[in-house]
């Protein structure tokens, strides 16, 4: 299996080097190379890739700005010449962090992590439920029951028709764990079950009378996901 990927890197020599490694591995197909985050984001709004090789400091928007605006969650390998971003990398749940320049051996280790994570995600994709820790117990919630998930700082609120559950977690962390066939991020503070959307007006959507904002960055993703006749 080959992973479809893009490279977002403003230094051509680094991108060429990486392309060569991808080719050599036989596991990575590089669909495009972008010199900045803005062009990459435009591509990602219309195309699906499984992996992004992402530089952090680039002219204009940074690699982290791009991750903030992504409407789905491909795996990410950060490629940077600074080690100072390790904490942010952890926060963004990236698959690996490569300090430029890196050897082929180190590149292969990163690809193995991608492969392993991909297997885990595919293994979970059939799940139609999740367990959350709330009120001191593990509660099983069916995807079908969840209307949306709202950020509350270090906590999130799972809203179902019958009850609201508050648990210690973040939207950023949940983004990679919820089933993308059912859930989508529409705002930095909201993940919604898009099968539950009743209507959309401008930059707001409604689910069972609850008004949920859609951020500018996520609007096109939402419109693509819903079935407009």
């Amino acid at each position, binding site marked *: 299996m080959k992973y479809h990927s893009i490279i977002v890197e*403003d*230094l*051509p*020599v*680094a991108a*060429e*080097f990486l392309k*060569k490694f991808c080719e050599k591995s036989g596991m990575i197909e590089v669909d495009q190379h972008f010199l900045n985050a803005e062009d990459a984001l435009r591509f990602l709004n219309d195309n699906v890739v499984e992996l992004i090789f992402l530089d952090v*400091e680039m*002219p204009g928007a940074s690699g982290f700005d791009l991750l903030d605006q992504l409407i789905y969650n491909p795996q990410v390998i950060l490629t940077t*010449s600074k080690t100072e971003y390790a904490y942010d990398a952890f926060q963004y749940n990236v698959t690996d962090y490569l300090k*430029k*320049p890196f*050897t*082929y*051996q180190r590149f292969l280790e990163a690809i193995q992590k991608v492969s392993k994570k991909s297997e885990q995600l595919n293994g979970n994709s059939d799940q139609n439920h999740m367990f959350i820790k709330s009120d001191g117990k593990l509660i099983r919630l069916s995807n079908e029951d969840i209307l949306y998930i709202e950020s509350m700082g270090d906590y999130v609120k799972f809203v179902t028709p019958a009850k609201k559950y508050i648990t210690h977690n973040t939207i950023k962390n949940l983004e990679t764990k919820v089933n993308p066939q059912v859930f989508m991020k529409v705002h930095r503070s909201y993940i919604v079950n898009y099968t539950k959307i009743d209507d959309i007006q401008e930059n707001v959507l409604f689910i069972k009378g609850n008004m949920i904002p859609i951020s500018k960055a996520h609007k096109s993703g939402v419109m693509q996901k819903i079935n407009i006749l």
Partner: protein
Amino acid sequence: MSKGDPQILFSFSPELDTDFLRELYVDDFRQAELVFESSLQQLRSEFSLARARFHDGDITGLKKVIHKVKPIFGYVGMNKVQEEYKDFEESCVNARSAADIESGFGLIIGITEQAIQKMETELKRLKQYNTQFL
């Protein structure tokens, strides 16, 4: 030794970080040649931009160029130069005017010119080796 029989392996110049370069390129000297060539082109072009930013007193712009150029030295086995660039990048962060970084930039110019010369020499050696043996 005839062409197509590369039993004599290329040895990077000792003033470069040879251990790292061997690890980076293994025995792919064609790639090494391409990377050295591309690195030289980019360094020349970006460094003239760095000079322009400095002369305009655009420290933020200069810092961005320095940050972009910095990893190039890693690909050609000049890790010490990369460290000098890193230090200078930090100086740019703390600088309030171009005068604060004038001597630092003077040092960077000297280091970069030397680095370009070394890269040119190494590229010439790589080209000769690849033409002769590969």
